[in-house]
């Protein structure tokens, strides 16, 4: 939340500042400062004084929000104001030792076949003790976690895993002795016991023992061997970090917490214990991107390779690839996703180039580009030590795009309808933007082209020269060129073309093409069309059906058609051109790329994402290969490629692509350019879809702050980003903030398109939904009513109109007008189902809300009738279906 959220003036903020400044001072000091304030602003002083007095007393916030309707259960005390972190934590981080009532460090306590002797440290979910094992007699490191805190079957699996883990025998792995579950005074506790390794963690040891670079590299190579040993036996560590690598007295590193890391730390992303815990956040820095993005089951050995690379990086430079210590969790995750590690050589001068290359390859974000195995990494490191050439090559500009093997459909499918739409819309605009940028250049290019062509054909030369260069080509108006717009000039001259070029169809064809394109780039599609059509005719006549020049003319026409809502006409033309280009081996040409890129956009619009992706990939490859000459076309193509990938559900791959597009826009136009901000929005929508609402909201706000001044606060593009922001805030539970954002977006859309345009209506709907969620029934009822009217008037939005009517009904019920409201709800739901069926998400929601409405009034039969169409497997339906069955049976 930034300062712009403060609705009132600065009085409130001033009072707050003064209050905070004074609240912890002595009585005397306070009085003194207040007296000082009183002299300049008596009102403010009075207010601050009053607030300070209240600070000392009781406040409504000290009491429970609700009178608890309970008999006899003890209440949870509300945490005190200003208390430190420990007391504020929820009881779910109970230390197992406290459950047994033992002393704090558990000394002397017996559990299972172990006697606790001391504490070694605290892990994320449990404590690690030093313990004496009775049978066999030895000292071990014993980690204990309360079983109830684990995933339901983890405790059980632990026993089976223990056998696998015990088979890991390598000097670089802390030997695991045993694992399972024990009873500790009635509480089930999961444990594992392993070799006790006393020493410092890897990075600290390297520092305190002043290890050379070679020492460090050797150590990591050794650890690679150990990790590879485990991989060969089917065990992935998943949580490698410096803290998990301990160097013993003998200078030998050992890896701790193998395999069990996964079992005793339930899916690290959802660890309930360590939220906001700085230590936890720090450990994220060594986690591979695929682990962070949450698809836990697609982790393979390469995740460990990443971690090894990150450890190596830190040993070389003193910091992990992306620094996140001290950050709040959301910011840390954002940083890990967005930031790129600097090359080690930049941080620690004198790092060997090859070593640098190996390190960077190990921490490649794309797992396909990393070393496949820890063994490979180890081998490379040994080559570096032996001064032999390494196999890895530094990343080059020509980047081959591979098919991404990893799929990440889940989240995107579930969330973010409008957020994704925002991306699509913005991406469309971004492309349009790039196009309009291209157009400026096209105009100049057109001039250049005209000049060039003018050199080829005298007649053309003469005509165009007259048009563009002379002050008054036909001597009629007496106005100079400076006073005429290009369009006016064109208008005047283009009528003359037919006569001027009678008998020179080739020249005429060229000129028509050029003029048509100039009109197109100026947005005058109506004027462009006749020229472009004529150009195609002439090209066909002169150069034949199959020539590349004719194809170019056809493509221009197809572009025009696609931009004037005639995509169905455009597509066959595009397809024919592309096919011909392929057939004639011209599929590597820039021409093909341009055609493919434009066709790709049209295909996206038509929902043909896979075909669009294929074409756009090709186009990107070619543009990249063409380097600076087509650098202008590359970013837009990347952006649209990202769209096509995203629309197929591969959000991780799409995000990477959106980021590439963003970087390309920045490289082309500079980081301050609007296209970059728009690209940032696109990346943010994917973060949003992934559930990183705070990070996405922040990005959206930045985009708005950039684009607003540039494009105008009322610009529809800016409005779309506000709309996206509204969703992010809604998803974060900040309803007032969401409402504000939706209202601002609505105002902007209304100013440009009017209140009944589909864009505007979509945002208004979101605002009305938010009003309803806020309990503002009166406003919600009014707004839904107005929206429904507009939607009905449009005649193609009947289904959505019914949804609006339904929620108007619900708002009316909330206002106490139950009869009318209910009638509306029932009628609207029926009509909706008639129109689109009950299987859509909206349909389910309407039925769900109606079911609940009936249940609230005790009408179980009616509720059951409505609920008959609810999907019993739908997650959102579960709660209300449970209630229904309880009511039916009770």
């Amino acid at each position: 939340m930034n300062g712009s959220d403060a609705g009132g003036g600065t009085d409130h903020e001033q009072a707050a500042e003064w209050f905070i400044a004074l609240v912890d001072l002595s009585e005397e000091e306070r009085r003194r400062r207040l007296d000082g304030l009183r002299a300049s602003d008596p009102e403010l002083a009075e207010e601050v004084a009053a607030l300070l007095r209240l600070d000392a007393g009781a406040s409504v916030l000290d009491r429970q929000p609700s009178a608890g309707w309970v008999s006899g259960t003890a209440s949870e005390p509300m945490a005190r104001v200003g208390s430190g972190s420990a007391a504020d934590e929820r009881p779910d981080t109970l230390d197992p030792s406290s459950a047994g009532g033992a002393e704090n460090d558990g000394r002397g306590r017996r559990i299972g076949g172990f006697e606790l002797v001391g504490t070694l440290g605290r892990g994320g979910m449990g404590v690690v003790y030093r313990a004496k094992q009775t049978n066999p007699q030895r000292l071990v490191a014993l980690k204990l976690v309360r079983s109830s805190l684990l995933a339901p079957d983890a405790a059980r699996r632990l026993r089976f895993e223990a056998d696998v883990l015990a088979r890991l025998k390598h000097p670089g792995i802390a030997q695991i002795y045993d694992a399972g579950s024990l009873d500790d005074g009635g509480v089930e506790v999961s444990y594992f016991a392993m070799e006790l390794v006393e020493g410092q963690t890897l990075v600290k040891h390297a520092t305190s023992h002043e290890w050379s670079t070679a020492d460090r590299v050797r150590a990591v190579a050794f650890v690679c061997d150990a990790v590879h040993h485990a991989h060969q036996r089917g065990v992935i560590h998943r949580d490698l970090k410096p803290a998990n690598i301990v160097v013993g007295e003998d200078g030998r590193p050992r890896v701790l917490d193998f395999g069990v890391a996964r079992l005793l730390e339930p899916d690290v992303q959802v660890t309930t214990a360590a939220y906001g815990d700085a230590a936890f956040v720090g450990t994220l820095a060594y986690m591979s991107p695929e682990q962070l993005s949450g698809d836990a089951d697609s982790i393979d050995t390469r995740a460990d390779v990443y971690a090894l690379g990150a450890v190596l990086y830190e040993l070389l430079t003193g910091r992990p690839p992306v620094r996140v210590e001290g950050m709040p969790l959301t910011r840390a995750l954002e940083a890990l996703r967005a930031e790129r590690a600097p090359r080690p050589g930049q941080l620690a001068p004198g790092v060997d180039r090859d070593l640098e290359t190996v390190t960077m390859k190990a921490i490649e974000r794309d797992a396909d580009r990393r070393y496949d195995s820890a063994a490979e990494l180890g081998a490379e490191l040994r080559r570096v030590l032996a001064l032999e050439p390494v196999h890895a090559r530094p990343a080059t500009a020509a980047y081959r795009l591979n098919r991404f093997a990893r799929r990440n459909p889940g989240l995107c499918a579930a969330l973010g309808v409008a957020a994704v739409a925002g991306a699509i819309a913005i991406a469309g605009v971004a492309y349009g933007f790039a196009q309009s940028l291209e157009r400026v250049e096209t105009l100049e290019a057109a001039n250049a082209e005209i000049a060039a062509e003018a050199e080829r054909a005298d007649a053309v030369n003469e005509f165009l020269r007259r048009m563009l260069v002379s002050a008054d080509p036909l001597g009629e108006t007496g106005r100079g060129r400076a006073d005429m717009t290009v369009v006016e000039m064109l208008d005047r001259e283009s009528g003359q073309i037919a006569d001027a070029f009678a008998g020179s169809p080739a020249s005429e064809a060229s000129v028509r093409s050029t003029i048509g394109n100039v009109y197109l780039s100026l947005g005058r599609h109506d004027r462009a069309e006749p020229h472009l059509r004529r150009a195609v005719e002439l090209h066909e006549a002169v150069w034949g059906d199959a020539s590349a020049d004719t194809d170019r003319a056809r493509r221009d026409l197809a572009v025009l058609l696609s931009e004037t809502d005639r995509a169905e006409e455009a597509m066959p033309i595009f397809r024919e051109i592309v096919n011909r280009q392929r057939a004639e081996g011209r599929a590597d040409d820039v021409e093909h790329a341009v055609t493919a890129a434009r066709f790709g956009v049209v295909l996206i619009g038509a929902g043909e994402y896979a075909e669009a992706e294929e074409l756009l990939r090709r186009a990107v490859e070619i543009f990249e290969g063409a380097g600076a000459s087509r650098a202008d076309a590359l970013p837009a193509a990347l952006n649209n490629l990202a769209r096509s990938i995203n629309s197929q559900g591969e959000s991780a791959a799409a995000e990477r692509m959106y980021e590439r597009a963003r970087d390309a826009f920045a490289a082309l136009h500079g980081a301050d350019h609007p296209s970059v901000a728009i690209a940032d929005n696109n990346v943010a929508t994917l973060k949003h879809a992934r559930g990183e609402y705070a990070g996405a909201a922040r990005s959206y706000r930045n985009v708005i702050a950039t684009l607003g001044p540039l494009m105008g606060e009322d610009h529809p593009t800016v409005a779309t980003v506000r709309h996206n922001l509204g969703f992010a805030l809604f998803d974060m539970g900040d309803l007032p903030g969401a409402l504000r954002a939706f209202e601002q977006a609505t105002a902007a859309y209304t100013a440009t398109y009017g209140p009944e345009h589909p864009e505007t209506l979509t945002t208004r709907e979101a605002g009305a939904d938010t009003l309803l969620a806020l309990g503002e029934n009166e406003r919600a009822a009014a707004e839904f009513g107005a929206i429904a009217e507009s939607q009905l008037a449009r005649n193609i939005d009947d289904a959505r109109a019914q949804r609006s009517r339904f929620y108007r009904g619900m708002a009316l019920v909330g206002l106490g007008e139950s009869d009318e409201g209910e009638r509306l709800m029932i009628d609207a739901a029926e009509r909706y189902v008639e129109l689109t069926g009950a299987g859509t998400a909206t349909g389910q929601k309407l039925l769900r809300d109606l079911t609940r409405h009936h249940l609230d009034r005790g009408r179980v039969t009616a509720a059951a009738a409505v609920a008959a169409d609810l999907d019993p497997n739908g997650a959102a339906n579960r709660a209300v279906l449970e209630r229904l069955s309880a009511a039916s049976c009770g």
Partner: protein
Amino acid sequence: MTSGDETGTRSGDAHPESGPSDGRSGLFEAVYEELREVSRSVMAGEAPGHTLQPTVLVHEAFLRMSRESSSSFADETHFKAVAATVMRRVLIDHARRRTAAKRGGGRVVRLERMDVQGEEGGLLPEELLALDDALRRLESESGRRGRVVELRYFGGLTFERIAGMLDVSVNTAKNDWRFARAWLQRALDEEARDA
């Protein structure tokens, strides 16, 4: 993912099937469903021995939902952040109904039973409504402080998590709370005075 996922795209795309808040088995919807049901049964007196302390309810709802593997929420902090908003709504709705009942025509019987068993120090429905009004006013002065109060008071989040959620320092969050504590009390005192 349906092709109807594009909402409001430009020029000629099909209008979406799902609306803004539909089909987003996103957090708000899921939490809303869960908490409503959990709270409703308690408030209706159908769950003897269960407390209506929001923070406990929220935690219970979280545990319930986390066992349902189909939920797609990101983490506990986020859950609680959304739950705070929902909880506030649920409590206010309930308080409204109760005060309406008192004024005439309603479930007086149930009301009495609940009052008798009321815990020390909890807010009465009227007070809760007054607090909600005051909180809205605070929100209009400072959205951030209002949110801090909401997250803490209704969601039970720690200052660390609040700070992370709102992207401010822990000190800022604590200061916000401390100030809000006094400010809200003052707002209530003024209301009482004016009434």
